[in-house]
């Protein structure tokens, strides 16, 4: 009986799709332009891809419309080398029929609230690249030889596919010189900027305060950690909610990715892998039962300082999650070679420990009392 309802003109502006816009949320009545794909998430989080056309959503369904590309992006692998970049051509591939959930769909569902502009995608890819390089996951050293370049490409392709669901069509190093002028950037730095001050909060872990880490990017040689944090420079309750949503949605997906790996022969490797999956499962359970940010107990508000500490711990867990995806990408490439497996398991142990530390800190309303600062 929709005949009598007033027809609403399509409100969402989808004009930039495929050009400056990668994906955007849609509502009933919008028309997805030709060449794009419509992605509808049911109330249970199951996704289905549809051909472009008019959007009709049932109750509690959400939809995104994305253009598969190709998109051309310029990434800066090192903050201290602004004249040397990578030019990237990425596409969103057709759905892989062998997996239950496409990684790109999960990426949109868990990380994109409304729209994903090309610039935002570029920032995310660059942050992932810089983090991988700073941590030594990928190597892009001075005077890279051809074999090293191929190894980098393979690792980077896998990282983008596992972390974002994007396929790299082409990636070449480029000279950004006439546009990016390092000398001019240095001249601009000569103008003094106020130093951000840092007042440590009692019980705040050294790892946690992301806004401080963001400030550190101005100076330190390793900027990747802070580049991630830079997207939410002043962490607020929203950052906490977004972070927990990501952990809630992505931890099970990460576990199922790890479950599919081929374990090397031997009881040790099998047991270690089981233990890892169990830890991730427990972390996922931990997230699902996470207490609210603003309350220390029912009807007892938590001081703002402690809320900040909790948000810091959420961001810490979030970083562990990102490292978990990068670890999965490495694992998918390394096959079941025993020595590489052992090294990666050591890293997995580290990531799990960070995740557990972050979640435990997020759960507690007040930092635990420790004897003489131990």
């Amino acid at each position: 009986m929709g005949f009598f309802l007033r027809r609403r003109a399509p409100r969402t502006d989808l004009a930039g799709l495929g050009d400056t816009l990668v994906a955007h949320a849609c509502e009933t009545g919008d028309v997805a332009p030709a060449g794009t794909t419509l992605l509808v998430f049911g109330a249970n989080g199951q996704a289905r891809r549809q051909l472009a056309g008019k959007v009709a959503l049932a109750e509690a369904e959400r939809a995104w419309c994305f253009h598969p590309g190709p998109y051309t992006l310029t990434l800066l692998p090192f903050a201290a080398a602004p004249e040397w970049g990578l030019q990237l051509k990425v596409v969103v591939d057709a759905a892989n029929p062998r997996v239950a959930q496409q990684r790109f769909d999960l990426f949109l569902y868990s990380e994109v609230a409304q729209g994903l502009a090309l610039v935002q995608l570029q920032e995310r890819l660059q942050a992932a690249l810089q983090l991988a390089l700073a941590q030594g996951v990928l190597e892009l050293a001075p005077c890279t030889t051809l074999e090293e370049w191929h190894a980098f490409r393979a690792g980077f392709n896998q990282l983008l596919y596992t972390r974002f669901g994007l396929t790299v069509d082409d990636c070449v190093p480029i000279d950004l010189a006439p546009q990016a002028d390092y000398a001019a950037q240095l001249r601009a730095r000569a103008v003094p900027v106020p130093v951000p001050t840092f007042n440590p909060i009692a019980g705040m872990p050294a790892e946690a305060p992301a806004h401080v880490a963001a400030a550190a990017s101005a100076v330190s040689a390793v900027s990747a950690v802070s580049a991630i944090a830079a997207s939410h420079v002043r962490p607020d309750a929203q950052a906490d909610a977004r972070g927990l949503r990501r952990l809630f949605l992505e931890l099970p997906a990460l576990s199922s990715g790890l479950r599919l790996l081929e374990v090397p022969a031997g009881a040790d490797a099998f047991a270690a892998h089981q233990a890892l999956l169990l830890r991730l499962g427990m972390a996922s359970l931990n997230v699902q039962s996470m207490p609210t940010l603003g309350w220390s107990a029912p009807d007892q508000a938590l001081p703002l300082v402690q809320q900040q500490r909790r948000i810091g711990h959420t961001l810490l867990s979030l970083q562990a999650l990102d490292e978990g995806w990068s670890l999965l990408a490495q694992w998918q490439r390394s096959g079941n070679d025993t020595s590489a497996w052992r090294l990666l398991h050591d890293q997995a142990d580290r990531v799990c420990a960070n995740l557990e530390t972050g979640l435990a800190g997020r759960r507690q309303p007040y930092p635990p009392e420790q004897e003489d600062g131990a």
Partner: protein
Amino acid sequence: MSGISHPRLPDYAVCRSVLADGRLLTITASRRARGNRADVKCHVAAAPALALRMQQVVRMARLTEALLDSRDQVLLSMDPAPNARERDWELAAVLADRMVRGLYAAAPGAEQALLALGWSDAWHLGRVEGEPLQAQRIAMAHLAPDGVLVLGGQVRSDAGEPDVSGARCSVIGHLGALHGHADLADCVASVRSWFPLYCGGSQDSLAWLEVSVFPLAAGTVPASEEDSIAAPQLDPARLQALRQTLCAARHFDGHGLGRWRTLVRFSQPEFQGNSYELALVMADRMARGREFLPRGRLIATGQSSAWHAGLVEAVDGQQAKLALIARQAGAGDRILLPAGWAAALPAGYVAGLRQRGASLACIERIGMI
């Protein structure tokens, strides 16, 4: 815990500092499983406030690291306790914390003889401050013959100050400088690279050189590229050779000429030969932001008669230099050798370096691939 490779970590690390009254202060760091405890625990006999301050310093300095590991607890202790106003021990605490986790390593042989003086109000930004000249005066008395001295602060040796740097002493203005990286907040880009200095004996060492590039004021063009390059430690003949090398390499670069004023400093200027040229050219490219960067140090040896074409040629002393590099390379280091050496590398040399987290390339020409 640095990167993918998992080098053996030391059980404990020692870093020393010197108090204003000339007494030696020792900071010892050790690791143990964390087991639900704080990430850093500090102990100073009869000075709990100082222990808290040390914990704060170490935690803030950790914010500049890329890789977080919450599996271990680091215990730090300081002896004797300095008075509350003294702060030069802070750098020693930060270095001890990094050494015990394998993020920084003093040269082999000098692990027990590292002296550090420096402090900072902005450890979370990686800044290090201090009075290098004064600090060196009080610290030299305690420096062992094979020791290494790290001082916080800035040295502008073009400002006529005496240069306190040397083979065993380095001045750092920020923590990244430990690996020769440029300071991302400074308006001067200074990059260090290392080259093997071989003199056929126990004095073999890795020497460093530092290229600092200052942007020219917008619109100015230098009279000649060669005049814009200075190296106050060198005699005129060697300075001329250095200038020609850099100019030719920048010519090869394409966008290098006419934009910078350059200052080159050496850890020890008295040496023979041209094998430092590759290290110089690479440091210059990295300082100007036109090269990918290593995670650790860049160690290079090589020369060329045709830098304007970017070619790299072999140098003498191959076996001794290879042995020296194999001893000194650490996690994240990048080693560049001339292509001619590739055939003569000892068996297992590359694999051995990779095991320790360093990467090696024998290159025919500089630049990408």
